[in-house]
């Protein structure tokens, strides 16, 4: 079914390519698109329309209309007329019940008319209310185009490339090429068709999706999205051929001139046997039709009336100015319309020019230029809004199946502005984004409302200019993971790893209860490298910290540690950690695992305001940290270090630089888990040495779950778990950290006004409530559980909860809703385990 070799044809007849359509083996040539290969193989119906399921065939052959959307290799809505044929590609029909040739849903076109007018789902399907879920189910099934398949294996990998150029030319036609060639310097030309050899840079096939502020132009090129930042943008997007409005204007066999031209010139296929040409632009394809051996049955530049008629959706004849002409090809041209969308997005004004009947861009923003047909460089006379003629439906918008009748009906109902008519009828909202229907809709509205086109205007142009796969916009799946220097140790031990923010942490090593017991009875070791670690150094460091925290650090003696909570100026708890003074002007600050970056930014922001002579350095990644805890901590650590660990020389809340297994460590004697403990901070590269030595000395690795039980036994709060954005230091019972005699600190102004609607208290119970369980008092919610665990050591369920102040009393009984039943719990204000902290100090 191919023509003789055509001058300049794009197919390579020496390279046949096999592919399948609906399971059948077909053959095309290299250089074919999927659409041209299917057409050459005899296929005429390519899709079924959105609403009426009417057969549709190739119309524009340039990727602008919705008629050729098929499912290719599982990807729905591929415009096959521009999709290059690849070996083995699997092409299927979509939006059909059956096949594109015999689609059972085609019945909608026959009988649905009176029942499915525009907006029918707003009106007809609202009663009875009970039936809506059923309607919805049916509508959901029928609506939309294509089906997203199983994407777990992906439709390939998507990537984003950032690029900067001085001048970006969009469009590879003659005007675009001339503009690019005229630039002396860094220029890139983006072409949505095949590339060409040029002295400048060319990106093709690639489509500019929009123009955003700052000269940002996203360009889709296969599976790569280029984010191009251009100093200057030259738009050379050319003009778009428009469809005429007449009855049956969507029949298979109706084509735009450029589609016919491409079919003959590039792919050497015969578009039909007997053709009728209508419109100024259509006459231009006479040459191609003659070469292809297509008989021209009739031609008219400006007919008074036209209607197309067919059988089973395929064109068989036209009624042209009252005369019936048999034909299977109708080439129509409603003139050209400059492709102004990108310019409109960039901020240009779009004005109607009645002399030529087109919208042209004016008042271009700085840094944006337009050349060629896109600028309005078109010579033509306007066409009629609608050609008279009776018969089949007359479509304004073939994407969404909006007919002239629908638009008239919308007008009659009062949707008389183009933006309202658009929202009501969905005209211009389909995949073509108005490329084929914007001008037609404006003309029709102007005629029907007896105004002119400039009064009607256009709808707002929005990106993307062409349909684009969501994956391309999302870019490559990217979930950064932070691993501690000891990550491989946890994996070797078979730890269950979990996400905590971006960190991967060991949750447990097989038996969290045994891990808890090891810490209480002997010795445990936990990787706490995820803690934020910050150095604050300089003559201004003590004063800066005094002002950043409610607590005081200027009177902290070198070698000592103090707990600190960071609050906002509204007095809300933001983060917590320890501050160790390593020297007169040097402090070592730890933050929560997820808070380090935010806290460093916060500290630096305040110091940008205050200007203390102090440097803030985030050393979180440079250092590892592990906590050695348990009654045997001292005797296990002693042989590994030359330092004096005696309780009198290395006291609770002391910070000392000691060597452990030959590795220099900063040892902090603190105890989040409630037993005698040393938190060892060392260079990340040496962490494994320290860890291995401690494990060899008998320490049992314990994970996050064991730590959560242990800290809960001490009543230690986890910021973000037990506190939220409403919590303040008084309600969280940490007012002891506030040193209100300081002249200023972040949150000081709020201290006198801090309200206590709830207090954070401990509780014991017999049943384990889920986190978030309600505390109920007199039939209403009076608080919530934030943490709860079974504690072997306490012998009960223990937890933390926010409760109303009236019941935040030691020994008070509160009711917690667990699985719908009320369970009693007893309020405990002190720690559940070792409330005096004797063990920590031992």
């Amino acid at each position, binding site marked *: 079914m191919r023509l003789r070799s055509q001058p300049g044809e794009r197919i390579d007849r020496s390279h046949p390519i096999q592919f399948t359509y609906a399971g059948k083996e077909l053959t095309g040539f290299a250089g074919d698109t999927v659409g041209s290969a299917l057409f050459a193989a005899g296929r005429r119906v390519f899709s079924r329309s959105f609403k009426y399921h009417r057969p549709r065939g190739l119309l524009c052959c340039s990727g602008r209309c919705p008629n050729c959307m098929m499912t290719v290799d599982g990807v729905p809505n591929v415009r096959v007329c521009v999709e290059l044929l690849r070996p083995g590609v699997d092409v299927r029909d979509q939006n059909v019940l059956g096949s594109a040739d015999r689609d059972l849903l085609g019945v909608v076109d026959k009988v649905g008319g009176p029942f499915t007018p525009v907006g029918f789902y707003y009106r007809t399907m609202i009663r009875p209310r009970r039936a809506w879920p059923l309607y919805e189910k049916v509508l959901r099934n029928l609506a939309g185009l294509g089906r997203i398949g199983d994407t777990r294996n992906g439709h390939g990998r998507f990537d984003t490339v950032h690029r900067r150029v001085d001048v970006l030319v969009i469009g590879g036609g003659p005007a675009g090429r001339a503009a690019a060639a005229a630039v002396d310097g860094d220029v890139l030309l983006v072409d949505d068709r095949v590339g060409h050899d040029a002295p400048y840079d060319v990106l093709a096939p690639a489509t500019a999706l929009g123009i955003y*502020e*700052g000269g940002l132009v996203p360009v889709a090129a296969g599976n790569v999205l280029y984010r191009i*930042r251009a100093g200057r943008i030259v738009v050379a997007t050319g003009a778009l051929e428009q469809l005429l409005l007449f009855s049956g204007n969507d029949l298979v066999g109706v084509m735009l001139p450029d589609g016919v031209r491409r079919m003959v010139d590039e792919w050497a296929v015969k578009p039909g046997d007997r053709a009728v040409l209508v419109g100024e632009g259509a006459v231009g394809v006479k040459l191609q039709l003659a070469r292809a051996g297509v008989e021209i049955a009739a031609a008219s530049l400006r007919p008074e009336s036209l209607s197309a008629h067919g059988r089973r959706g395929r064109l068989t004849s036209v009624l042209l100015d009252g005369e019936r002409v048999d034909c299977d090809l109708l080439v129509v041209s409603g003139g050209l319309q400059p492709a102004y969308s990108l310019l409109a997005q960039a901020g240009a004004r779009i004005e109607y020019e009645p002399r030529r009947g087109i919208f042209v861009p004016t008042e271009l923003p700085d840094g944006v230029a337009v050349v060629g047909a896109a600028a309005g460089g078109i010579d033509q006379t306007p066409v009629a809004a609608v050609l008279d003629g009776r018969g089949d439906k007359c479509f304004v918008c073939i994407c969404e199946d909006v007919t002239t009748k629908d638009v008239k009906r919308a007008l009659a109902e009062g949707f008389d502005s183009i933006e309202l008519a658009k929202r009501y009828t969905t005209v211009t909202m389909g995949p073509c984004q108005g490329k084929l229907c914007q001008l037609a809709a404006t003309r029709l509205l102007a005629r029907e409302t007896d105004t002119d086109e400039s009064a009607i205007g256009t709808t707002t142009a929005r990106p993307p200019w062409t349909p684009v796969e969501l994956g391309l916009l999302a870019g490559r799946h990217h979930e950064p993971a932070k691993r501690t220097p000891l990550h491989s140790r946890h994996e070797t031990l078979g730890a269950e790893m979990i996400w905590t923010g971006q960190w991967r942490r060991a949750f447990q090593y097989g038996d969290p209860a045994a891990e808890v017991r090891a810490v209480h009875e002997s010795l445990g070791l936990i990787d706490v490298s995820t803690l934020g670690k910050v150095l604050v150094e300089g003559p201004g460091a003590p004063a800066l910290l005094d002002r950043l925290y409610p607590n005081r650090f200027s009177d902290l003696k070198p070698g000592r540690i103090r707990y600190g909570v960071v609050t906002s*100026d509204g007095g809300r708890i933001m983060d917590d950690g320890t501050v160790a003074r390593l020297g007169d002007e040097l402090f070592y600050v730890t933050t929560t695992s997820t808070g380090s970056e935010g806290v460093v930014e916060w500290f630096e922001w305040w110091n940008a*305001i205050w*200007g203390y002579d102090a440097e803030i350095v985030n050393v979180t990644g440079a250092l590892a940290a592990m906590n050695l805890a348990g009654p045997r901590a001292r005797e296990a650590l002693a042989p590994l270090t030359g330092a004096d660990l005696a309780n009198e020389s290395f006291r609770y809340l002391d910070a000392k630089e000691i060597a452990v297994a030959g590795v220099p460590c900063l040892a902090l004697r603190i105890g989040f888990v409630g037993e005698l403990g040393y938190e060892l901070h060392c260079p990340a590269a040496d962490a494994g040495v320290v860890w291995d030595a401690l494990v060899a000395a008998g320490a049992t690795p314990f994970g996050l779950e064991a730590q959560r039980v242990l800290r809960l036994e001490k009543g230690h709060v986890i910021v973000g778990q037990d506190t939220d954005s409403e919590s303040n230091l008084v309600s969280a019972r940490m007012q002891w950290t506030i040193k209100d005699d300081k*002249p200023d600190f972040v949150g000081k*102004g709020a201290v006198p*006004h801090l309200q206590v609607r709830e207090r954070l208290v401990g509780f014991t119970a017999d049943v384990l409530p889920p986190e978030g369980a309600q505390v109920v008092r007199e039939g209403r919610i009076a608080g919530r559980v934030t943490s709860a665990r079974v504690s072997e050591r306490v012998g009960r369920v223990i937890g933390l909860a926010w409760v109303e102040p009236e019941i935040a009393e030691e020994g008070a009984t509160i009711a917690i809703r667990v699985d719908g039943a009320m369970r009693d719990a007893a309020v405990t204000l002190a720690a559940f385990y070792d409330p005096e902290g004797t063990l920590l100090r031992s």
Partner: protein
Amino acid sequence: MSFLLSCPHCGPRPVDEFRFQGEVTRRPGPDASLRELTDYVYFRDNVAGVQREWWYHRTGCKVWFVAERDTRTNEVLRTEIPSPAGAAAPR
């Protein structure tokens, strides 16, 4: 939002490299009334026009700086690392 912001250290960079910290506010003294405090903590002028605001070059050099931006057009008129004395001052 895709405008360029001129970092005082790094020059013009895409805005998504930065963290926005809101308009420059006037922090009341420690003896502020509840109303003054509430105004400062919760309320913003939200001007349609030129606004002085804090930005942080998060994925770059990590500097805090003040930008004067027209909120209607996203035109950035100037950026500067404020001298500490002037930083807390209002517009």
